[in-house]
C-alpha cells in the first residue's frame, strides 16, 4: 500500500489522471465509431512533429534556467531558415538542408544573446523569457512586412505588403522527412518513419551530450549552482551553452513540424508554440529543474494523444466541442502544478 502511495507522490496525481484519461479515451474510441488505427497513426504523426520542440526544453531545465517559455525565439530562427531556403529557390534535400543550416546558425546567435540576458536575471528567467519571446514575435511580425523577400510563393499576390501569413512548403520540402522510409499501413495511413527516426536521433544526441563532461557540468549547475561553482564549473558558461542548445533545437523542431504540417506559419504563429511544449514535458514527468529523455517521450505521447483523441471522441460522445477548453485546462493546469510543487532544491 505504501508502495502505491509513494508512486503516486513521486509520479504526481495530475499525471496519473491524465494518463488514465487518455487510456479511457482509447478504450471508448471504438464504441463511438472512432477508428483506433487512424487515431494511433495520428498520434504518431503529431508525436514526431512536436517531439523535438519538447526536447528543446531539456537543456534549459537541466541547467536550472527553468521552463523555456522563450521557445518562440528558436521558432523564429526556424522561420527565417525556412523562408530564406525558399527564397533561394532550393527544393528537396538541398532546400531542407540549407534551411536547417541557416536555422541552426541563427538559433546559435539568438540563443547566445538570449542566454547572456538570462544570465543577468537569475531567478526571474521564466517570466522574462515569456515576454522576451512575445516581444520578439511582434518584432518579427513587423520584419515579415518589411523584409525584401521576392519569391512569389511567399509574398502576398497583389496590392499586399510583405509575406503571407501561411506559406505552403509544397514543391519545396513537403513531408521530406515523413516520407523517408515511410511504411504504408492500410489504405490511407502512412507511418512517418523518417520523421520519427530524426526525432529519435535528436533525442539520442542530446542524451549523449548530457553524459559528456559539459553535459554533466550543466546538470550540476541546475541541481546546485553554489556547489557547482565551488567545484570550479563556470556557471554562466554552462547556462549559456544550455540556452544556445535549447534555441537551436527549437529552431530545428519547427522545421520538422513544418515539413510534416506542410505550411510555414508566420506572424503570430510562434506565439502558440511554447505552451504545448512546456506542458508536454511536464506531463511526461519533468519538474521545473529536472528532465530526462523518458519525460520527453512519455510527455509528447500523452499530450499529443490527448490533443488528437479529445476532439474526435468527446464530440462523438456528447455532441459538443469541449476539446479546446480541455486542452487549455490540461496544459495550463499541468504547468501550474509543476510551478507550485516544492522542488527538492530551493532556488
Amino acid at each position, binding site marked *: 500500500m505504501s508502495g502505491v502511495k509513494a508512486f503516486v507522490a513521486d509520479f504526481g496525481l495530475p499525471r496519473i489522471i491524465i494518463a488514465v484519461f487518455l487510456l479511457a479515451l482509447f478504450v471508448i474510441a471504438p464504441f463511438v465509431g472512432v477508428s483506433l488505427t487512424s487515431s494511433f497513426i495520428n498520434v504518431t504523426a503529431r508525436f514526431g512533429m512536436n517531439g523535438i520542440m519538447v526536447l528543446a526544453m531539456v537543456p534549459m531545465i537541466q541547467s536550472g534556467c527553468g521552463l523555456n517559455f522563450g521557445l518562440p525565439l528558436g521558432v523564429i530562427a526556424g522561420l527565417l531558415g525556412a523562408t530564406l531556403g525558399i527564397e533561394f529557390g532550393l527544393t528537396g534535400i538541398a532546400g531542407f538542408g540549407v534551411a536547417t543550416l541557416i536555422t541552426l546558425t541563427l538559433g546559435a546567435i539568438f540563443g547566445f544573446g538570449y542566454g547572456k540576458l538570462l544570465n543577468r536575471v537569475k531567478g526571474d528567467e521564466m517570466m*522574462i523569457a515569456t515576454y522576451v519571446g512575445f516581444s520578439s514575435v511582434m518584432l518579427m511580425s513587423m520584419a515579415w512586412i518589411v523584409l525584401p523577400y521576392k519569391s512569389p510563393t511567399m509574398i502576398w499576390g497583389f496590392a499586399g505588403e510583405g509575406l503571407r501569413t501561411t506559406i505552403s512548403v509544397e514543391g519545396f520540402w513537403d513531408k521530406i522527412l515523413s516520407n523517408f522510409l515511410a511504411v504504408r499501413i492500410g489504405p490511407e495511413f502512412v507511418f512517418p518513419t523518417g520523421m520519427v527516426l530524426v526525432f529519435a536521433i535528436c533525442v539520442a544526441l542530446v542524451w549523449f551530450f548530457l553524459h559528456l563532461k559539459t553535459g554533466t557540468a550543466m546538470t550540476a549547475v541546475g541541481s546546485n549552482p553554489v556547489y557547482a561553482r565551488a567545484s570550479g564549473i*563556470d556557471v554562466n558558461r554552462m547556462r549559456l551553452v544550455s540556452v544556445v542548445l535549447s534555441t537551436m533545437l527549437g529552431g530545428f523542431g519547427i522545421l520538422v513540424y513544418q515539413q510534416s504540417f506542410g505550411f510555414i506559419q508566420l506572424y503570430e504563429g510562434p506565439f502558440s508554440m511554447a505552451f504545448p511544449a512546456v506542458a508536454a514535458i511536464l506531463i511526461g514527468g519533468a519538474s521545473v529543474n529536472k528532465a530526462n529523455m523518458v519525460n520527453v517521450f512519455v510527455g509528447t505521447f500523452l499530450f499529443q494523444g490527448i490533443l488528437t483523441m479529445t476532439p474526435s471522441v468527446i464530440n462523438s460522445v456528447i455532441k459538443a466541442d469541449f476539446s479546446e477548453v480541455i486542452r487549455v485546462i490540461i496544459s*495550463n493546469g499541468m504547468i501550474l502544478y509543476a*510551478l507550485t510543487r516544492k522542488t527538492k532544491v530551493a532556488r
Partner: protein
Amino acid sequence: MKNKFKLFLIDNAVVVVFVLLIAIAIPLAGMPGKYLLQEVLTRLGRNAFLVLALLLPIMAGMGLNFGMVLGAMAGQIGLIFVSSWSIRGIPGLVLAVILATPIAVLLGYVCGSVLNKAKGREMVTGYILAFFMNGIYQLLVLYAMGSLIPIGNPELLLSRGYGIRNVVDLIGVRQSLDKVLQLTVAGIKLPIATYLVIAAMCAFIVWFKRTKLGQDMRAVGQERAVSLASGIPVERTRIIAIIISTVLAAVGQIIFLQNLGTLNTYNSHEQTGMFSIAALLIGGASVRKASIPNVIVGVVLFHLMFIVSPMAGKNLIGSAQLGEFFRQFISYGVIALSLVLFAWKRQANEDASRASLRGGASKGGAA
C-alpha cells in the same frame, strides 16, 4: 558617484524612453491636439481603476499581479447577468459589482493560496493561473450559461441555444457612470463621476497603507522571514492582498466595459492584465515599488502611445498593420524590459554586497 548616476538612470529609464518615443511619434502621427487630449482623458477614466488594482500585491512583495485577469472575469460574469436581466443604468452597474464581488473574493482566495505555494515565482504562476482559469471561464460561459445556468435574454445566447455570444452589447449600462456628472470644458468631455470614483480609490489606498493590515503588508513585502518572526501571519496577509486586488480588478473591469459599451466575452479580460501591467510599468513602477503617480503617468503615456502608434506607423512606412504590430511589440517589450532591468539591478546589488563582504574588491570575481 558614477554608480549612483547609473542607478538613477536605470530607475527612471522606462519613463524617459517613453516620453522621448511619444515626443517623436506625436508629430509623425499628425493628430489634432484636441482629439489627443479628449482620447487621453477618456482613457484615463476607463483604465486608471484597473491599474490601481495592481498596487497592493506589489506592496506585499508579490510582484505584478498577473492573476488580476481573474478579477476581470468576475466583473464580466456580473455584467453578463445584468445584461441578461436588462437592468439599466447605475442600478445595473451596482448590481454587477454586487454579483462580481463574491466571485472575485473566491477567485482571489484561490489565487492567493496558489501563489503562497509558489513563493519567489508568483508572477509566472499568476500568469499561468490566469490561462488556467480562462479555461474554466470558457467552460462556464460558453457551455454552462444558457444550459445549466438560466439566461433570461435569448439575444445573449449563441444560435445553438446555449453559450454566450462573442460580443455582448452593454447598451443598458453603456457609459452610465461616465454620464452621471459629465462636464464639457472647451469642447472636451470630462467624466467627473468616474474620476471621483478613481480619486476615492486612491484615497482608500493611501488610507489602507496606514492601517495595521497595510503596515503588515509592507513588512511582508520587505522581508518575509522577519515578518513571520515578529508575529505577522505572512500567508494570510498575502492572500488578503490578492483578494483585495482581485475585487478591485473586477470593479475596474466593470468601469472599463461601461465606458466601452461592448463586451468581447472571450477576449476582453485577456488583454486587461497585459495592458494594465504595461501601463503601470511605463509609468515608472517596478516589480517592487509602485505608487499612485506611477499609475496616472503610466496610463497617460501608455494610451498616448496606443493612440498615435498606428498613425505614426502608417505615415512613416505606409502600413497601419505595422503600427498595430508596433504597439503590441511595445506592450510586450516594456514588460520584458522592466522585468529585465529590475532583475538586473537586483543581481548587481547582490553581487556588489557580496563583493563588499569579501573586503571591498569592487570588480571581478562575482560571476
